């Protein structure tokens, strides 16, 4: 196949099939969450599978003609002794026809054939179709109950507000700090410039676990900001600085200096030049910096889990983990919450991801 430019290309149909398979893989977990959220239930099963039926005396008497109570008791005992059923009467293995007869006492062997049939009914192994249903991301019944319940029965509204406040404050503070520092690193040459830039880069390698205990001591014991939004905001804003500074510095470098020099000749002060001329020109980079800071504040989990020990001060990530961490299995709350938390960040991300990529790779090339 040739296109207009004369390229020869692979046939499109296999490519489409290949891509569709991958799109299915890429979207399946997302569809899974959406399905559970819309199911209105807390269970993480997408569909309820048929239950096994218990083998009890009453059932046997009902289903096997001519069987009396005593005989039924004997049969149930025999099945239990053979470890075929557990104490609740649930069949644990698939009974084979020729193994049923030897199991029974001699006088009951005439029931072997009807018993085998009945046991097969009790087994009720879900069919392939049932299984297929159980992995199809489509709710059995549609309900918005989980979305209502997560706000009504759980303090999720509070947690979202906490996250929003922290992420917004982080963005404002982080962008301010990164813009000023990035501008200085880009435009001025001063002693400590190189050391500063390198130290920012190296700080990206500090393992979070090394910082957690000292940060706890500083923030909680010294600054008395434990379990507070301010403490968490300060931590997030500073941890996002190095990436943002490198990113903005790179962008400021591309803005021609002549503009500022002209403004300087016109008598503008350095402050005016920075706020009125340079920052407006650097809007795209500032936007990416803002996105990155916001994502840091919105998505961070482990520090929030360490510093926020009051339930009403949890951030959304800590709260979501609270639903399904440990022995808690509230998947309905979790999935509804996860969707609410993800939507804003996914939309922002899709708009700005190409800048993020260029920023990330540019930063590391220079390192």
């Amino acid at each position, binding site marked *: 196949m040739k296109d207009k430019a004369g390229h020869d290309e692979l046939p499109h149909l296999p490519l489409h099939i290949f891509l569709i398979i*991958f799109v299915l893989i890429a979207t399946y977990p997302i569809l*899974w969450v959406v399905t559970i959220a819309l199911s209105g239930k807390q269970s993480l099963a997408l569909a309820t599978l048929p239950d096994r039926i218990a083998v009890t005396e009453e059932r046997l008497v009902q289903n096997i003609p001519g069987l009396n109570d005593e005989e039924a008791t004997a049969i149930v005992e025999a099945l239990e002794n053979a470890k075929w059923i557990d104490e609740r009467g649930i069949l644990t293995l698939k009974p084979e026809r020729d193994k049923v007869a030897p199991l029974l006492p001699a006088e009951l062997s005439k029931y072997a054939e009807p018993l085998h049939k009945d046991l097969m009914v009790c087994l009720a192994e879900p069919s392939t179709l049932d299984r297929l249903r159980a992995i199809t991301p489509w709710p059995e019944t549609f309900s918005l109950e989980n979305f209502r319940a997560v706000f009504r029965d759980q303090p999720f509204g509070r947690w979202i507000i906490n996250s929003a406040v922290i992420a917004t404050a982080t963005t404002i503070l982080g962008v301010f700090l990164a813009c000023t520092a990035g501008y*200085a690193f880009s435009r001025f040459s001063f002693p400590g410039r190189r050391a500063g830039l390198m130290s920012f880069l190296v700080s990206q*390698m500090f393992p*979070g*676990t090394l910082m957690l205990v000292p940060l706890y001591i500083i923030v909680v014991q010294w600054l008395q900001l434990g379990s507070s939004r301010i403490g968490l905001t300060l931590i997030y804003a500073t941890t996002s600085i190095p990436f943002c500074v490198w990113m903005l510095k790179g962008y400021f470098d591309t803005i021609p200096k002549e503009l500022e020099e002209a403004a300087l000749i016109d008598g503008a002060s350095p402050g005016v030049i920075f706020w009125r001329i340079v920052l407006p020109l650097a809007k795209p980079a500032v936007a990416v910096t803002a996105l990155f800071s916001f994502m840091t504040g919105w998505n961070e989990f482990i520090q929030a889990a360490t510093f926020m020990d009051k339930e009403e001060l949890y951030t959304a990530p800590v709260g979501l983990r609270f639903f399904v961490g440990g022995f808690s299995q509230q998947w309905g709350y979790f999935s509804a919450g996860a969707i609410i938390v993800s939507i804003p960040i996914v939309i922002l991300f899709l708009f700005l991801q190409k800048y993020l990529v260029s920023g*990330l790779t540019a930063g590391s090339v220079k390192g």
Partner: protein
Amino acid sequence: MESGSPSHRLRFGIGIGAGAAVAILLGHFLLGGALSNLAEQRETRQGIVTLRALSDLVSRTADGDGLRKAVTEFQKAYPELKSIRVVLLEGASLEASTDPADTGEWAAPRQLSRDEKKNEKPVFDLMQKIRGTVEANREEKTAKEELEIGRLADGSGFSLAGPLEKNGEVTGLVEIKRSSAAAATRPGWITTLLYIAVPILLLVGLSFGVGNKQIPLAICAAVLLIGTIWGYGVQSRSKINREGLAASDAVASTAKTGGERVQSILQGLGIQAEPALNPASWDSDLARRPRAVLTPDLKVDPAKAMSAFAGVGTAVTRATILLIILGVAIALFFGMGWAELFARTLRVHRTAYYYVTPAMVGMIILVFFPFAYGITLSFTDYNIYTTGKPLTEIFNGFQNYVEILTDFQIAKRSADGSWAFNYYNFYWTFFFTIVWTISNVTIGVTLGLILALVLNTKTLALKPIYRVLLVLPWAVPNYITALVWRGMFHQQYGVVNQAIQMFGGSPVSWSDTPFTSFLTALATNGWLSFPFMMVVSLGALQSIPADLYEAARVDGATRWQQFTSITLPSLKPALVPAIILSVVWTFNMFNIIYLVTAGQPAGSTEILITQAYKFAFEKYRYGYAAAYSTVIFGILLVYGVFQNRITKASEGI
């Protein structure tokens, strides 16, 4: 050069003044802290002696009125006691109390109240706890604290509670509330100021001898500072020792008067002290082990009393050396003209520093300082039992590092004698982390590259839609991804096992073996990491000029040849940094491991960073965890330097 700048004399004068002031003032406050600490210790010891005297007295009286009379007499004899309470285990009865609140309807004897107005359940719990500790200590030969000390809510003193024993059995609880009276001796300001003034004056005097020369003045200043600060250290140490001995004397007299008072109260009650009282044994620690500082005739044994201060001595020496370093550094900073240079630099580049300072201050307080503090912690035995102690006391050198790096015990003999793999070993975790990183990055790059190549097909329909859908996994917050995949790998209801059963397999218990557990984490991380590589590769592919391929085709190159000689080399500049970045990300991918496998089974799927976290926050070995994290940092740093070389080399080509 000499004429324009201020004289060396002046610089060193300011320098030695600043150095001495900072070092000596710091020393002054350290000494003050140590002295008030000592005073507090003395009060506690005296309180313990009093409490033990009281318990001894009460245990010799019969329950009931005799006991109450003894308590009343004891309270009269000790004005510093705010109140005394004696509680018996039998019937949870408050047998005697001199607490003003326990009068009228609450007067002893009565049962402990569980009213809302007066909830005494904590007292009962405390009694049970103390009894448990005493019995455990007796059976297991341990030395846990049998006495409970607590501050009073209004800060006016402290409370002490201990067991009441009869015939070797714990029968109840004795509690006193004691006001603290004695203020600590404060270090004298006059001495401190003298210590600051003397080196300055001496340097001024000396400078007439050596003249206005930089190096001799520097040496003089350094020697003077070392001498002064050392002198201050020696003086402080002897002061601390004196106070310590005085404390033992005070305790001895408390024990002595205590013995006499108890004796007289017993006589008043007509009880023969049998066996005889032994007040010296009352001076004990909180585990009721005798300190053995007092001789049976209640004299202080100076050697024993001094030996208690051996630790204090080394701490003072260490602090003195640190102060000397600090003081000399400050003196040189001013004296050598560095301060001036520093100030000039700040002035010249002030606009730049205005802009950098806010970010830098934040970074220093919340990134660099915690980092340095973390490194410091890695040289200590900081854990949940030593939290209150100063770092100098729990310093243990390289012990944590040695423990981590020389532990080659890959297999361990378990309780039943069989050999079990020791997954908590550092080298296993390191190995696993490398396997984890390499397999993830390989999967990410391969999938990302293949998808990018497919999506780069020029005329393919629906490309933007595919692209957006394929980027989604990257956009979803990764902790949500992790929790979702954990749900999908659920043994009973998870869709993965349902799918396996649909094709006739049996459900897999994913967290039971290291390999299956690893697969779950790998699937999760693979899912969320391929879009990044895809986007990066796609960007690079689109920037390859089409005529390169044109020319290659004209030359008769096959599709594979075009791929290896045009596509791959053009991808390299974008892909190499992306790979480097994703190696670091994956190496430290805390959320996925922590939330998906949680290290199951038996810690086999921990990576270094989650292991370090667990040492800190599940085993509470903060110092050890800090050393572990420092090792991780070392590994990343080596990797960083290494990759820097490689990329620099590739840029050169």
